[in-house]
């Protein structure tokens, strides 16, 4: 079943990637949406039938390094993939009315490829399958970004992330001689194994958590359709999925685990703060995504990879897409789709509501505070300030988001009124006015401290050392000292031989004596 879906997506992608015409864009996008709908129904049918399936083939049959590609699917995997198929369908609907996107069918092809690779990643049982899917998705992400500065940032960050993941997988293979995740998790991993650290760094870079969010900032120049694919079906989500797949290996080490949770928490707070002080709406949305992904990481770090957590994250994921698109432009259709998304989310939450939430309480509060702060800022922006963003649908959407979040917190009755009160106070006293003053500050709006820091810490020493070594070793020691000495020595030897070969009597005597000495040595010296 899953292999059929994988192949269908690949075929759809290959057939559509070469179409670069401008005509029939809308019709073809509808056709693409239809394909996703059919696949969605198909996978949903398999999900309802509740069958586990496993399809695999041996990719590398080497004695020393066998690699299997597997499409293992159970209820959890069906559900996860359904989430991405549904997201893809939403994106296709949004794309129909996206007037800035001229190559809609090309974007559809990239969605197909990304979905196929996400499926491969989700079904993967070994590190190499996870690694290959993650790297391939980055290549398609590279193709998706049609803005040079954004592409430049993207490729440098993803190169770092992919190399970190690549090296981590190589280290794990070198240590355990197996690439099956469950087998590695069963082994005793040394706490000094840097592979765990590298995996975490790779996933954080991909998801754009602090301090690696810089690569997503220039993507605000892309069309909304491309941004949708990039944020929700490409690198950031892949980061989280890789973390989820590697979770059985990572969870063995609590020392690292604490460090990861600090980074995720820092991302959440910095995301919330940045939404308030940054003027540009596209950037605000990037920070909202950062809040979402950091929340997702924290859920996984604190409460594990339970089915409940995934249901909650899945619903929030759809909500995030709705927020992202709902705030884009005045379009009734967008509002309609947002409404549909939120209804879907509420349905999932109703299921989740039956489960005890006491464990999740503190984390929920944290996330709610961040989101409420952020969304409050957006509502202020839309309704109360003199900003050009005056969008009824966006306002409606934001209100609905708040209602939905309050709906989630209904399961935590003791905090519900506190949260509501806090929110009303926030709206009433308009603390956002303090932050809007920063809108005029160029220093704040163009602040790229983290990217700059990373550049100076990461690339700076290499650039500095490279220049110093080039000047000292290459130029001073080799060029000026060694080679010049050689050339000088050669010159001196030439002069000596020239002097010896001058037609003078003393030279003739010298050569005769030399010949005599050699003869004497050959006669008496060797005896």
């Amino acid at each position: 079943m899953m292999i059929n879906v994988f192949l269908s997506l690949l075929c759809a992608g290959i057939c559509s990637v070469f179409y670069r015409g401008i005509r029939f864009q809308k019709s073809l996008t509808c056709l693409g949406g239809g394909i996703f709908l059919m696949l969605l129904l198909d996978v949903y049918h398999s999900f309802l039938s509740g069958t586990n399936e496993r399809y695999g083939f041996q990719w590398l049959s080497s004695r020393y390094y066998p690699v299997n590609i597997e499409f293992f699917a159970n209820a959890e995997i069906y559900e996860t993939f359904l989430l991405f198929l549904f997201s893809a369908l939403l994106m296709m609907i949004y794309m129909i009315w996206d007037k800035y996107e001229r190559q809609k069918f090309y974007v559809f092809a990239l969605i197909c490829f990304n979905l196929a690779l996400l499926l491969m990643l989700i079904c993967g049982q070994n590190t190499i399958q996870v690694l290959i899917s993650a790297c391939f998705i980055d290549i398609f992400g590279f193709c998706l970004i049609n803005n040079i500065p954004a592409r430049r940032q993207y490729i440098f960050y993803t190169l770092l992330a992919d190399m970190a993941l690549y090296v981590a997988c190589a280290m794990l293979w070198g240590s355990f001689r197996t690439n099956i995740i469950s087998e590695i998790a069963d082994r005793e991993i040394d706490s000094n194994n840097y592979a765990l650290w590298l995996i975490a760094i790779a996933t954080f870079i991909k998801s754009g958590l602090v301090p690696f969010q810089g690569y997503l900032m220039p993507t605000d120049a892309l069309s909304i359709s491309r941004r949708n694919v990039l944020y929700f079906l490409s690198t950031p989500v892949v980061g989280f999925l890789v973390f989820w797949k590697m979770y059985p290996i990572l969870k063995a080490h609590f020392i690292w685990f604490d460090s990861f949770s600090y980074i995720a928490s820092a991302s959440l707070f910095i995301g919330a703060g940045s939404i308030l002080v940054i003027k540009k709406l596209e950037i605000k949305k990037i920070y909202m995504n950062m809040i979402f992904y950091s929340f997702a990481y924290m859920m996984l770090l604190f409460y594990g990879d339970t089915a409940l957590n995934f249901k909650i994250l899945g619903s929030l994921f759809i909500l995030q897409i709705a927020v992202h698109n709902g705030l884009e432009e005045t379009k009734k259709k967008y509002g309609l789709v947002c409404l549909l998304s939120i209804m879907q989310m509420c349905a999932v939450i109703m299921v989740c509501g039956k489960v005890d939430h006491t464990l999740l309480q503190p984390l929920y509060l944290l996330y709610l505070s961040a989101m409420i702060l952020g969304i409050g800022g957006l509502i202020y922006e839309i309704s109360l300030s003199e900003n050009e963003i005056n969008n009824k649908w966006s306002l409606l959407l934001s209100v609905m988001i708040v209602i939905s979040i309050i709906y989630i917190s209904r399961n935590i009755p003791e905090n519900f009124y506190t949260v509501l009160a806090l929110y009303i106070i926030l709206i009433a006293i308009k603390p956002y006015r303090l932050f809007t003053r920063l809108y005029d500050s160029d220093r704040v709006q163009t602040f790229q401290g983290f990217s700059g820091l990373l550049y100076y810490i990461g690339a700076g020493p290499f650039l500095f050392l490279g220049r110093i070594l080039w000047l000292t070793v290459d130029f001073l020691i080799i060029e000026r000292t060694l080679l010049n000495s050689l050339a000088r020595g050669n010159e001196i030897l030439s002069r000596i031989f020239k002097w010896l070969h001058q037609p003078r009597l003393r030279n003739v005597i010298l050569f005769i004596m030399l010949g005599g000495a050699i003869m004497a040595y050959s006669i008496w010296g060797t005896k």
Partner: protein
Amino acid sequence: MNISQHFLIMLIIAPFLGFLFALTAQSTEKTMRHNVISVAEFAIITNIILLWRQMTELDLNQKGLQFLTQYQWTDGPVINVAFGIDIFSLMIALSIHLVLLVSLPFAKNSEHPKMLVSLSLLMLSMLMGFLLAADIFSFYIFFTAMLIPAFILVGMTGEVRKSRWIFRFFIYNFIGSVILFIVICALSNYSKSTETILLSNVAGFRLPRVREYWIWGGIFIALLSRVPIWPFHYWIASISGAVQNPIVFMLINLLPLTGVYGLVRFCPKAVPESASYLLTGLEVIAVISMLFIAMIGLINKDNRYKLFSFMTVYCIMFLLGALLPTNRILLNIGYSIFAFLIIIAVLEVLAAHIYYEQQRLDLNTYGILCQAPRLSFLYSFFTLAAVGFPLSALFINNFVILSYLFSYNFNLGLLITISMIVSSASLLKELYVLKDNRYIQPGSVCIADISKKLFWGLGIIGILLMISFYNPVLVLGG
């Protein structure tokens, strides 16, 4: 002697005959360019078919050289020469042929196409002899003989700006050859029997400890004089930066691989104790050189220097992988080299096109690719393949090599990884200098895009590389 053994000799003879034909081609300007290139293409394709034939006959599970063929060279003293082949040498040989085939169209733009092509064929013939050599004499002969066409190529057609670089090239390689000659003489003196001294038997020689130290030290210095390890890196760095012709650039940059290949052949896993001490020292110097050259590549603005630094980093990684105390990854190194050489050759061809166009129109480097979509697509694709994205056999095979390096020595693996990242970053940096469209004004002069024929030719190579990612042996017909 079966037919496969004759094929080995044919692999050396075919390019040599091509060299003779190209050299005697009619010297009229109108026909010369096409004639010599056609002859070269024919010779190279013939050899590729012969190699493919050998590939189907090879037993991939058998260790050591296969189809061993011996010839008596001289009667007094009795000197025999032997040739053989294994999958490792075959992969390198095949990639060298493909590299030449990719770069050959650029011979048309050269001032001396006849000399360039004929000397390239002569060098190919010598390289084949070197790769097939199974004994120390034939190894030395081809090791040194390949320098003759290399010197002439650099001197005559390499468009080198300063003669002192040729002097460095000569000094380093000459010293290496002389040292190897002394070592070969010493080894043949210690071998009391009249049998052929096979390369694989050298490690088994029982020598006095001090002499063993000197002999192995000599072997290492001779072979390392070819590899860009400090302080030997300087000759090849200078030449690489100065040579503007893609054929000459690639042929000169194949010389370091001959050093790596030589060490693989000389150092089977049971090396004497004295050599194992030297190996440790070699590892330390190699990894420092690697990091050093990667950093210089990052700050250097010359595209060719960046390519050179990238090649050096990978070359040293292959060397360190080959010197590990295991035979298991030799095949992976062969596959990696196969993909690596093809990627670099294509990048060099594209870089040469950009350079020529830039010189012709007197343009700045920034954003030069923006108006040439075919060129831009191929340059991006091959750069991504080079830096390690899963687009070629390089990805999975380097993964295995790195995993073994990490399990052997963590610090070594870490430094190699850092060097790889730095050299990859320098290639990407160059790509975005070429694609930076901020300075491009509408209506400004643009470079000519590559022809459709070349685009599809290189595109097919790209597809071949992607298939090699899936399965390298499948591509090669094994």
